[in-house]
């Protein structure tokens, strides 16, 4: 079994078509990207006992004792804020596992890492199904949050570094394709989950506001999703291949890439990368870009209603606000592919100047003229979210440019701790400002301005960090690794 999963086993034979690798990577990312769609479960899970309405918890112990009671209680429904911890755990464990196991992923290859990721991701669903059945929140947190989060981290980085090695001529396009899948995962998960819940619970009607599926349907839903995503991930895992040492695409001359500013032909190890200034500057860049994007994503639905409130009533209906969230999801997904591919043409540093500098302009416009027209508001926020998605998709290619291909997956894993940190900081910042103003969904545009201008400052910090990024000094370069593995072989493929 171990041999079947080893890196050596999946070295591509001569003539292998490299365009088989992007759909394999997409299959994995479409599956784990489902994490973004977990909010579809919050409402039915918050009424798992009461069904028609949440059963509130009676007054009980407080403090640490109260926390442990919350973990094991079975008599009342979970609050949405309690369930929301799964989301935080997702992103904390995504970053942590990617950072901790990145070097192992690099050594063992994408198949081994992909299989472990698929088992973790599926186990998360199955443990959560048990959690719903027994009504134990700790099982939900452990299953989906912790174990599923580890699956997310491993599944996220493993195909990305492989794609970079297959597409040295177009790394932005290749990683954009895969990471677009992560954005697309939520687009699939939400409607699929609703349809499955309706299938398992005939009394549930997705189109009827307030209608929720019962606990039994949720158990079956989690089991079904676990099995389904396992199959899709395994399809990707068993189709992924790594290029043979020395392989390069037909007609590709590494010298053309190396001639670009900031692109190295040397290699830096993961251990050395974290000793460089450029790594931490890029960490700040990613942190700032993600934090600013979360500022919009976190409050998208109430935000558009609050921006167009006249005399206490919003001109944007709840249904239209949910449509706005859908539009943002499309911008998020498209930005990952379009902007990352563009970075192959204009370079990674200029692309991040567009993300961060453009974000400063767009956030300022949202804060100052965002109330002028709904279409303008949608366009401005859509572009902000496309830059947010683009930032994720372009960063692996930026790392390849700075540190080479040697351990780019492991370095990517370490950099993703910036995502975890932003996943905690972003909501804290935006909610901190909005909580001081009132309840989102009952505010006006003015209440959002302090938060929006804070995002402008955060983006400005990221912009400066990006400007300061320089090539990695030679003392960090590996001496025992071929300087440019792409250039030494004579084999080629399509």
């Amino acid at each position, binding site marked *: 079994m171990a041999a079947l999963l080893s890196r050596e086993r999946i070295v591509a034979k001569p003539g292998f078509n490299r365009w*088989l690798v992007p759909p*394999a990577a997409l299959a994995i990312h479409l599956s784990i990207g489902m994490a973004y769609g977990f909010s579809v479960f919050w409402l039915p899970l918050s009424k798992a006992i009461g069904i028609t309405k949440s059963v509130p918890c009676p007054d009980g112990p407080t403090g640490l004792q109260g926390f442990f009671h919350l973990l094991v209680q079975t008599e009342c429904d979970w609050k949405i804020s309690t369930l929301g911890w799964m989301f935080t755990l997702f992103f904390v464990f995504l970053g942590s596992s990617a950072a901790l196991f990145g070097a192992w992923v690099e050594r063992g290859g994408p198949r081994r890492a992909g299989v472990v990721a698929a088992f973790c991701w599926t186990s998360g669903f199955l443990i959560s199904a048990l959690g719903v059945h027994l009504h134990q929140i700790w099982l939900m947190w452990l299953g989906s949050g912790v174990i599923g989060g580890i699956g997310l981290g491993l599944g996220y980085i493993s195909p990305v570094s492989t794609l970079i090695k297959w597409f040295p001529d177009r790394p932005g396009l290749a990683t954009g394709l895969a990471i677009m899948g992560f954005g*697309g995962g939520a687009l699939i998960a939400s409607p699929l989950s609703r349809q499955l819940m309706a299938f398992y619970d005939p009394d549930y009607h997705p189109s009827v506001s307030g209608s929720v599926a019962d606990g039994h349907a949720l158990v079956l839903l989690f089991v079904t999703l676990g099995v389904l995503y396992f199959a899709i991930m395994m399809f990707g895992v068993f189709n992924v291949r790594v290029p043979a040492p020395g392989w390069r695409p037909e007609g590709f001359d590494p010298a053309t890439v190396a001639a670009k500013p900031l692109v190295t032909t040397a290699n830096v190890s993961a251990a050395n990368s974290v000793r460089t200034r450029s790594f931490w500057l890029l960490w700040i860049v990613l942190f700032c870009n993600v934090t600013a994007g979360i500022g919009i994503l976190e409050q998208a639905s109430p935000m558009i209603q609050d921006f167009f409130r006249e005399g206490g009533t919003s001109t944007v209906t709840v249904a239209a606000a949910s449509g706005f969230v859908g539009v943002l999801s499309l911008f998020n997904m498209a930005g990952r592919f379009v902007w990352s591919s563009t970075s192959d043409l204009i370079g990674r540093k200029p692309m991040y100047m567009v993300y961060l500098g453009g974000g400063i302009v767009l956030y300022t416009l949202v804060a100052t003229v965002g109330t002028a027209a709904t279409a303008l508001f949608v366009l401005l926020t859509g572009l902000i979210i496309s830059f947010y998605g683009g930032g994720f998709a372009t960063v692996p290619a930026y790392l390849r440019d700075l540190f080479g291909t040697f351990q780019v997956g492991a370095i990517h894993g370490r950099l993703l701790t910036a995502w975890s940190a932003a996943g905690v900081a972003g909501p804290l910042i935006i909610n901190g400002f909005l909580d001081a103003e009132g309840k989102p969904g009952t505010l006006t545009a003015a209440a959002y301005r302090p938060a929006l201008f804070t995002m402008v400052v955060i983006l400005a910090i990221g912009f400066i960090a990006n400007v300061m990024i320089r090539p990695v000094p030679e003392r960090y370069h590996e001496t025992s690794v071929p300087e440019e593995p792409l250039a030494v072989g004579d084999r080629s493929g399509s």
Partner: protein
Amino acid sequence: MSDQQAQAPAHQTLRLIVSWTLVAVLLGYGVIQTLVTAAKLFTG
């Protein structure tokens, strides 16, 4: 090596079609469903 290369194209073309079709169907389903939801922004 030449045998492998000679056999590869037809086999790989089928794999390419199956692989890209699978991800296109999954992604297409998500995009269409989201467009239906997104339409409410203009009609809702």
